[in-house]
């Protein structure tokens, strides 16, 4: 048998420890990925839109404003149209976004899987998206309980969970 250049038991052990330590260090440390200079303006808009969705979703349940999950749960599933019916029945969400993102226009799309097909619906249309628009995403999970509490028309089964991707396309005016 040719046993040249084999990894010996001790060396193997050493290598395994090194790899494990590396993975542990990486997963335990706080990582910040800084964007490139050219993208600074886009990044700023993307960051602040992503913040808006996070803050909307973090909003405590017992506060006066509905949080993102509650807003989405209340949707009547009627797609918005421009310019007659820009926000559908998602006035609450629209008010929140307008408050948190002044001087910014946005569209909101909802993407979800229904009967095995991916559906993408326009929920809020504030205008045709500009050239420099950015997209941020946030996921919410709907249950039949939240939907019926909020009076939405999602039509979920008693134990069904539906994950909805909220896509926010934002651009500056």
């Amino acid at each position, binding site marked *: 048998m040719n046993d040249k250049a084999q990894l010996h038991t001790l060396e193997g052990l050493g290598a395994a420890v090194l790899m494990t330590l590396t993975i542990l260090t990486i997963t335990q440390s706080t990582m910040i990925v800084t964007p*490139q200079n050219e993208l600074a303006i886009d990044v700023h808009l993307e960051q602040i839109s992503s913040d808006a969705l996070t803050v909307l979703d973090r909003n405590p349940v017992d506060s006066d404003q509905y949080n993102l999950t509650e807003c989405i749960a209340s949707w009547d599933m009627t797609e918005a149209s421009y310019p007659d019916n820009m926000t559908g029945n998602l006035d609450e969400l629209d008010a929140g976004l307008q408050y948190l993102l002044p001087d910014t226009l946005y569209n909101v799309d909802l993407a979800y899987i229904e009967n095995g097909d991916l559906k993408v619906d326009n929920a809020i249309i504030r205008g045709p998206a500009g050239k420099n628009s950015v997209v941020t995403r946030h996921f919410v999970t709907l249950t039949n309980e939240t939907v019926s509490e909020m009076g939405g028309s999602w039509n979920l089964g008693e134990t069904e969970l539906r994950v909805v991707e909220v896509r926010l396309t934002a651009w500056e005016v």
Partner: protein
Amino acid sequence: MMDDKGQIAVDFLLGISLFLIALTFTVQFIPGMFMSGSAGESSLDYTAYRTATVLVEDTGWWGNSTSSGTDWEEHPGNVMRIGLAVDDDLSSKLTNSPNIISRKKTLQMMNVDKTTFIEMLGLYNNVDDTLFAYGYNISFTQDGNVLMLNNTSIIRGQIVPEYKETTKITRIVLMEKGTIASFTGDDLTSELVNTATINITGPFVENITIQICDLNFTGLSPMFLNASLDGTTLIQPSNYTVCKIDGWEKSSFNGSLSSPTDVLSFNFDKELFSSSSEYRLDLEFRNVTLPTPGPPFIDYNDWNSTHYEPAYLVVEVWE
């Protein structure tokens, strides 16, 4: 016999050395080949972005030879990183609540000395081993004004120079601001006609907020008349302010209630409840029924929860 296990072939050694020398040569002699960003731009974008991200998404960290944790605000002498996100697990460096800002950490940030602050947040440039601190201005704002916590304006750094190029990053956060209790008209207890009575036990570290919605109207032009504490009528705006809340917007309130769905928000000065005793707060209305009789009266301290308000973190950096 010679042991020939685990040897590197000389050919390979020669090959890889040549390759490495060539690579180093290329990198050294073609400047800008591996640099990102365009000419004329500095690393200020990175610095502003990083500073804002660390403050909003990190909990901070402290440590000494024996223990460590994310509650650096309790151990300002051993702080290793400054971050403002609230945290429920002190031993893990990660947080489940980015963008939610801790009031205590924010106040402690105001006390960190300048050198440590610049060092912790990396607000300096390293040129030939000499450190140059950047100019910076870090503040929390709300409705266009600098946010106040515990009578302190939350702003650090210098005034932004007018004739210099600066880099600015804004982040949206939820700031922890005192406590809030929300009542409906049916929750409120009443002894005197048209008057809601709430028991409040002090002291508080921040102003307290009481929100009232779904009041039952009985006649024409229902109104909020006045608030009194232990029989003394309180004065607006030095003792308290009141406004109407419509979704995310606050609007001014002149006393007259137009619809039962109006949400009233009262903000009482914390100095009113300075001792640790029970205070009786009376809110007098006109043409409003409060169906729940008292005493016992409803207790603010049983109903309250932490109050979060949206605010902006603005980080501005310049050379």
